[in-house]
């Protein structure tokens, strides 16, 4: 077909769709007008088919529309029916296509040849893979035990399932049905490298739900949350914040770095890493000293009296905090006054504030500030969540768990919920050995601190006899596996999802395949169902699709709207009848008995970071961050994203750099207590002089050509591979960050590492 002909055909297609009442027109803004099997314009053949689904490039999981030509996914857009992302998606969502057609995609099961990590594989059939997984067998001279063997021997808990990302009904089916019915509670997650200090703080504080609608806030104090760059619920928050700013809300961001969030804030207040707590305590101090609180309201909603708090906070003056954090005392005072008089206000935070040695107390101090400022009323706002009705009963078994998930005995005061980044250390040092270790949508070798130590343990067949990885490409961890199961990408799966809209309306939506799983890849949920059937686990369903279908047809509201068929066509259903209610809250525990018992200050108090106190003036504190076009370790295989972000230069303050003789673009060496790395310097006015910041996205040594520059074993040629123009793929920062945890939650201290920096 020549170009002219193509243009002609394309315009015919266009004309047809235009007459058909402009089905795709953005102005109509509602997908309800779309009909099943709808076809529209196309660049290549004049036709496109539309399939609503759900994104999963990051945990925000926006509702999307997939556009398919012939059988190929050609475009992803936001689903305009969503009241969360309102038809918008980010760069990562747009690049989801790259996940399917990644030239380093695993398309068939693999069995290891040679030593672990040697890069040699045997392509095997699913039958062989399933037999190996179930019954064990020989792998390069060693006998390994399978799922059936472990169960028959009465040691099913020796099967570890360690997941990174797992959401919606994927989680439910894997954990609540399959693993539970199988008989293991040896389940690792990724919480302790993500947000654990924050969730433990919330658990300790208790009933801290908001009193006001987030979107009504007139002032936001943001401690270390990059919500405009790459936050949790990224697109929904971008849209909400944009609307709030249009309505005159003020955003003040405390961060070591001028993140894009800080850049779009009304004010950026640079803080020395790990000292947000000092600033928070001083903000609280000012409010108390200036009598800017409602005594009755405060005492009605917390378990501390104002007098006790005053005494506790009396020494945390703005001048004291300036000394520690570098934030001018006048600035702290003026922000405290402004925060107190602007109502309603909300203090938000994330990793920048709490993935520190003192993270739990920092997050608790945030609750304390909001309680004093009167932003936590005795009544709380209660929003209805989505209530999918799953038609299959949970097995509800009590299963055994290996003692690997909470760190060493007495290492952490509150390892509740697991300290999974310490599983490697526990296996390395302990007696508690797994027989079968399955990694699912996770890359612990790369994602934990101290990559080299991780790799050493995962490589050791004596410590982990049978390592199985379920993955879409050969990651640093998957490269070390004995058996690799090729997973379906998120665009090839079935999942029920649910989130709330800004107005508290439950948004029910589904993820459905916009494309059949490529090659021999399979949704692991379907593999789990298959295994369950072989082991007679009686889950009640035999595939993810069946589960989603039955759930849609069983959930009231959706059932009446047309059930599964409705959801396939529209992707989303809202429960507009769900009402937001207000309930009396139980008292917030600003004074924690449990912390007191564990030997920590029951009311948030200053908690210095020991290594920072011993720093010399030449040393810097290393912090990590995310960028807007990458998600942690798992999107660098997406060529359009990695074209935009592939190096990870170290941000260093102009004055600091000058003292060290470093100029922009110079290669520098960064040395920590466990190792050193080399990267380029990004000399900038946008970072605290005592900090050096490196993103965690670049520096893969596996994960395929686009990510690492190296073709993996499964590499196939692709149209753009010759056009890859960047040579530098960065160096990974986690290699020099020790794999440690904070003393309370065991949460990874991403932002505390002391380093020496020099030009090379």
């Amino acid at each position, binding site marked *: 077909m020549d170009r002219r002909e193509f243009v002609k055909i394309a315009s015919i297609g266009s004309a047809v769709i*235009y007459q058909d009442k402009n089905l795709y027109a953005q102005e109509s803004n509602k997908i309800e007008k779309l009909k099943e099997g709808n076809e529209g314009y196309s660049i290549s053949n004049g036709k496109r088919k539309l399939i609503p689904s759900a994104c999963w490039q990051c945990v925000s999981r926006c509702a999307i529309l997939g556009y398919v030509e012939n059988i190929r996914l050609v475009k992803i857009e936001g689903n305009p029916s969503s009241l969360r992302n309102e038809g918008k998606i980010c760069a990562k969502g747009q690049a989801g296509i790259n996940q399917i057609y990644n030239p380093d995609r695993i398309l068939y099961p693999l069995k290891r040849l040679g030593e672990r990590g040697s890069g040699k594989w045997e392509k095997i059939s699913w039958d062989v893979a399933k037999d190996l997984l179930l019954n064990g067998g020989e792998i390069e001279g060693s006998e390994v035990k399978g799922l059936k063997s472990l169960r028959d021997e009465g040691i099913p808990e020796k099967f570890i399932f360690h997941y990174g990302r797992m959401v919606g009904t994927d989680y439910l089916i894997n954990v609540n049905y399959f693993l539970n019915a199988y008989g293991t509670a040896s389940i690792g997650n990724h919480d302790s490298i993500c947000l654990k200090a924050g969730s433990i703080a919330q658990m300790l504080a208790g009933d801290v739900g908001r009193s006001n609608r987030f979107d009504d806030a007139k002032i936001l104090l943001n401690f270390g949350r990059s919500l*405009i760059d790459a936050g949790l619920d990224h697109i929904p928050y971008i849209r909400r914040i*944009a609307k709030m700013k249009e309505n005159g809300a003020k955003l003040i961001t405390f961060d070591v770095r001028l993140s894009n969030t800080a850049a779009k804030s009304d004010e950026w207040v640079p803080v020395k890493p790990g000292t947000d707590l000092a600033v928070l305590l001083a903000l609280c101090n000012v409010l108390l000293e200036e009598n800017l609180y409602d005594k009755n309201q405060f005492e009605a909603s917390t378990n501390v009296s104002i007098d006790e708090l005053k005494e506790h906070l009396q020494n945390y003056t703005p001048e004291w905090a300036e000394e520690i954090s570098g934030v001018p005392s006048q600035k702290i005072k003026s922000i405290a006054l402004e925060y107190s008089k602007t109502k309603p206000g909300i203090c938000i935070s994330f990793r920048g504030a709490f993935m520190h040695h003192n993270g739990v107390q920092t997050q608790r101090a945030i609750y304390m500030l909001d309680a004093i400022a009167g932003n936590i009323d005795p009544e709380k706002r209660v929003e209805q969540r989505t209530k999918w009705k799953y038609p299959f009963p949970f097995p509800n078994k009590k299963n055994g768990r290996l003692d690997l998930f909470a760190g060493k005995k007495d290492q952490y005061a509150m390892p509740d919920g697991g300290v999974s980044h310490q599983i490697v250390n526990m296996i390395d040092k302990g007696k508690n050995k797994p027989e079968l270790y399955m990694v699912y949508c996770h890359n612990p070798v790369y994602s934990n601190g101290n990559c080299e130590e991780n790799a050493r343990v995962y490589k050791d067949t004596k410590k982990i006899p049978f390592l199985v990885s379920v993955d879409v490409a050969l990651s640093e961890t998957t490269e070390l596996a004995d058996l690799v199961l090729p997973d379906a990408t998120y665009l090839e799966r079935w999942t029920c999802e649910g989130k709330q809209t800004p107005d508290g309306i439950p948004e029910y939506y589904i993820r459905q395949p916009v494309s059949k799983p490529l090659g021999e890849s399979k949704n692991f949920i379907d593999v789990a169902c298959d295994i369950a059937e072989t082991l007679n686990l009686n889950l009640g369903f035999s595939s993810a699709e069946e589960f989603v279908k039955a759930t849609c047809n069983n959930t009231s509201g959706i059932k009446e709207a047309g059930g599964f068929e409705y959801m396939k066509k529209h992707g989303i259903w809202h429960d507009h009848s769900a009402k937001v209610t207000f309930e009396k809250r139980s008292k917030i525990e600003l004074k924690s008995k449990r912390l007191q018992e564990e030997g920590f200050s029951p009311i948030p108090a200053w908690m210095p970071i020991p290594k920072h106190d011993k720093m010399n003036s030449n040393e810097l504190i290393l912090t990590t961050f995310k960028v*807007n076009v990458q998600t942690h370790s798992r999107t660098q295989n997406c060529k*359009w994203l990695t074209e935009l972000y592939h190096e990870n230069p170290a941000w260093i303050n102009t004055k600091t750099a000058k003292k060290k003789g470093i100029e922009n673009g110079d290669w520098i060496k960064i040395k920590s207590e466990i190792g050193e790395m080399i990267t380029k310097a990004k000399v900038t006015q*946008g970072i605290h002089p005592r900090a050096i910041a490196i993103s965690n996205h670049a520096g893969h040594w596996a994960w395929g050509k686009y990510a690492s520059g190296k073709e993996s074993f499964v590499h196939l040629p692709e*149209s753009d591979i010759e*056009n890859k*123009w960047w040579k530098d793929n960065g160096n990974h920062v986690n290699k020099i960050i020790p794999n440690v945890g904070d003393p309370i939650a065991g949460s990874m201290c991403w932002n505390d590492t002391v380093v020496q920096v020099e030009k090379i």
Partner: protein
Amino acid sequence: MESKKFSRKSSVLKIFAWTIAGISGLVLFRNRSFINQLLINPKKKRLAMVMDLDKCIGCNACTVACKAENGVALGGFRTRVLEKEVNEYPDTERYFLPMMCNHCKDAPCIPACLNKAIFQREDGLVDINKDKCKAFQLCIKACPYGAIYINPDADPSPEVKDYPSRVIAKADKCNFCQHRIDVGLEPACSNTCPPDARIFGDLEDENSKVYKIVRTGSLSGLLQEEGTRPQVFYKGGKKEIFRVKKTINEYEG
């Protein structure tokens, strides 16, 4: 003598002042008479895009949406977002500048092409006729924004061959997603823009958002001193950030 000297000095100053104004690359369309001048033929469609820099968060959703929609090869950009930092620590600020072909009224790429491969539609859209393009690259030199690149493919795979951006060794650039706008859709970039910073529309349509914005805000255009009369307008931002010669397709490698 004195007065003559004075006047020479003042004219030198004047030229100096104009040069500075020119270098700054920014002209604010503040007064209404200027806007009225823009409206040459009210009956015609006139396509334009407004970039609201107060809203742009530099997320590059537009950049990637464009890559997907138009199948743009690695190494080329029809649009992208630049970043610029100003001021000293701790008063540092960062600005984002989304850039694309400006669909200039006096597009310098059109006369630069020896083969007359670049044309302007009645609605203002500037596009490249790939059949006529011989990749002489004179358009690339002529465009002050760096909006045009040569498709780097040696041999695109069948899946992407049909994309107009993937014709071997031909010039390519933004065409406002002509295939979308001609069926009533907006371009892929503004369609996905998370904070609604990109606003596309017809400057002659009283009901369009661009019509209203152009008449209410003070807007600027890139490199006004080039005399290209760009049809991509910028709302907000600081003048330091508009010095952006040849930047859309400027990259290493």
